[in-house]
């Protein structure tokens, strides 16, 4: 079995809720099960789109893969090595160079009082020793990659528009030539006309730099544009996984079908009726029912669904679903 650049093995992340003194003894400590057993490989050179709605655990997964948060159970391997096995600071630093993240809120990730130059030189200051001349050259190259000018490098980062800030955040993430990038809703906060610019840029860089990417988003249309494979996550579990076009043509899991049919097309004639799921049922990450995670929202749960948890099974080449149904 070919192993991926990133291997996620049985990953769980539980957050304990505050509890009373006696709960410890009665066993009623509540936990938020943000991730509840994730198994996935991300292969070199591919982009996996991770989709799910609020509370599904997708951002948590991104942070754990990068080592920003620790898993409760299970582990992540990068380049064959477990990242939780890393003991020394220099080792961790070496891995951090190869893995980077782009966040959702462009304004929030740049210090508005740092100049563009300072923002871009920071990663180099941390990881390399470069002369001013070498640094200047690097920064000029980076700015060119994303259509910004070296002449602007003395401007404060707070002076740029949202779209420009996101380009800056992108190019900063790519400045150390990482092998793997996690992009967490990188364009969700941007206007439509700017979104398309950034997405094109990401596609271009993806190809140029042979990046491996985990693209996290709630917006399926955007994910489709950049991803080779799609993983759908619900209440901390992957419920469907498959090649991008296969997923869009033949979604299997009821949640996937629900998500896809909820897309409102700009052409009113193309809007389908929504695949029936109980959309408004408040989901709780604390009281996850026994059996299938999706049973509360599904219109067709059987007894089997309520008793047993469906594992991911292959329904066509590379296409997996966690649903007992046909």
């Amino acid at each position, binding site marked *: 079995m070919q192993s991926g650049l990133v291997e996620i093995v049985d990953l769980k992340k539980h957050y304990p809720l505050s509890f009373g003194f006696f709960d410890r003894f009665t066993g009623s400590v509540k936990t938020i099960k943000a991730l509840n057993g994730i198994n996935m490989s991300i292969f070199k050179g591919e982009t996996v789109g991770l989709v799910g*709605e*609020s509370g599904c655990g997708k951002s948590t997964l991104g942070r754990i893969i990068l080592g920003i948060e620790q898993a409760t159970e299970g582990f992540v391997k990068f380049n064959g090595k477990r990242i939780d096995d890393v003991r020394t600071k220099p080792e961790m630093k070496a891995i951090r160079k190869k893995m980077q993240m782009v966040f959702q809120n462009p304004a929030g990730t740049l210090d508005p009082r740092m100049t563009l130059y300072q923002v871009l030189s920071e990663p180099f200051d941390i990881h390399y020793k470069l002369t001013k001349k070498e640094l200047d050259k690097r920064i000029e190259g980076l700015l060119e990659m994303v259509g910004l000018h070296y002449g602007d490098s003395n401007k404060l980062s707070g002076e740029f*528009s949202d*779209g420009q800030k996101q380009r800056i955040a992108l190019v900063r993430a790519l400045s150390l030539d990482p092998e793997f990038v996690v992009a967490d809703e990188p364009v969700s906060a941007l*206007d*439509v*006309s*700017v*979104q*398309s*610019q950034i*997405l*094109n840029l990401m*596609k*271009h860089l993806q190809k140029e730099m042979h990046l491996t990417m985990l693209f996290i988003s*709630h*917006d*399926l*249309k*955007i994910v*489709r*544009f950049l991803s080779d494979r799609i993983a759908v996550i619900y209440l901390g579990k992957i419920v469907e996984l498959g090649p991008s*076009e296969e997923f869009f043509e033949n979604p299997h899991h009821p949640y996937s079908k*629900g*998500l896809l*049919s*909820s*897309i*409102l*097309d*700009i*052409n*009113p004639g*193309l*809007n389908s009726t*929504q695949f029936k*799921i109980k*959309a*408004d*049922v*408040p*989901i709780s990450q604390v009281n996850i029912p026994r059996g299938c995670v999706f049973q509360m929202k599904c219109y067709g749960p059987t007894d089997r669904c309520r008793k047993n948890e469906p594992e991911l099974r292959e329904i066509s080449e590379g296409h997996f679903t966690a649903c007992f149904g046909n």
Partner: protein
Amino acid sequence: MESILKVEELKTYFYTLGGVIKAVDGINFEVKREEFFGLVGESGCGKSTTAFSIMRLLDDTSKLEGRILLGERDIVKLSKRQMRHLWGNKLYMIFQDPMTSLNPVMKIKDQIAEVFRKRGGRALRTNEIIEKGCSLLGQVDIPDSERVLNQYPHQLSGGMKQRVMIAMGIATSPDLLLLDEPTTALDSTVQFKIVELLLDLKREYKMSQIIITHDFGVAAKLCDRIAVMYAGKIVEQGRYVTLLKEPAHPYTQGLFKCIISNSQKKDYLDTMKGYLPSLYNLPQGCYFEQRCEISKPVCREEAPPLMDVGNEHLVACHHVGH
């Protein structure tokens, strides 16, 4: 068809230390009875400010000019005290984030009771509140309404909160309901249901609505007519399907191209070059000129007037009509 609202040459300027922001710069439109009218555009275009201006919710840092005719009355001229009679009666607005619109320390039933009380008339007895409350919540498809009435907002999901907001909106049976990005904060599966709910309510209550959104998918599903706004001006206006089929303004054309349609798989997306001009420093002629592929000299000198190109379709572009 009779119009519920007529906006004439509305200008909303904000006076700040940095200068004057012309958030809304001379717009004209009308909303007919039983119509869903969309104010569509990207951030900073002035759509929300227009709604707040209509509702007269802005404070003294802004100045309104022009006329807003609700029926026969020009509400620009009214005092806040006079507006209070209209709020919850003739006009109601539902805001973007249901999480911040509901009072977090009041139970749902008390907030609904408050809506009825503000409408005038006597205070309702407890059993009347429950009865009216259940009926209302039922109309917005909230199951288990008696239990929900006794809950606090934080116990409800985003979609439920927004339904409660909509329920409070229809409770007042306003002539005009304004919704500011009603589904932006919601997941897509919930958004779909809320949009369907609004359509059902349109059929049942025959309410006129102004919907503010940046999402053309939402506009496609809900709106009869839309106005596309850019930098405080309306650049194009008309029936949604007309604009979709034959967008005449370069900005509208650009926007539709940028949006990824469900049915297409592309290598690279179409984009629009450039950015919104600074609202402190708007150009002399057409505000879109800097980003326009087909700009000519007159575009830099003169602001294009809104021209009627037939079939209720209006466009503000020097290349169109005459």
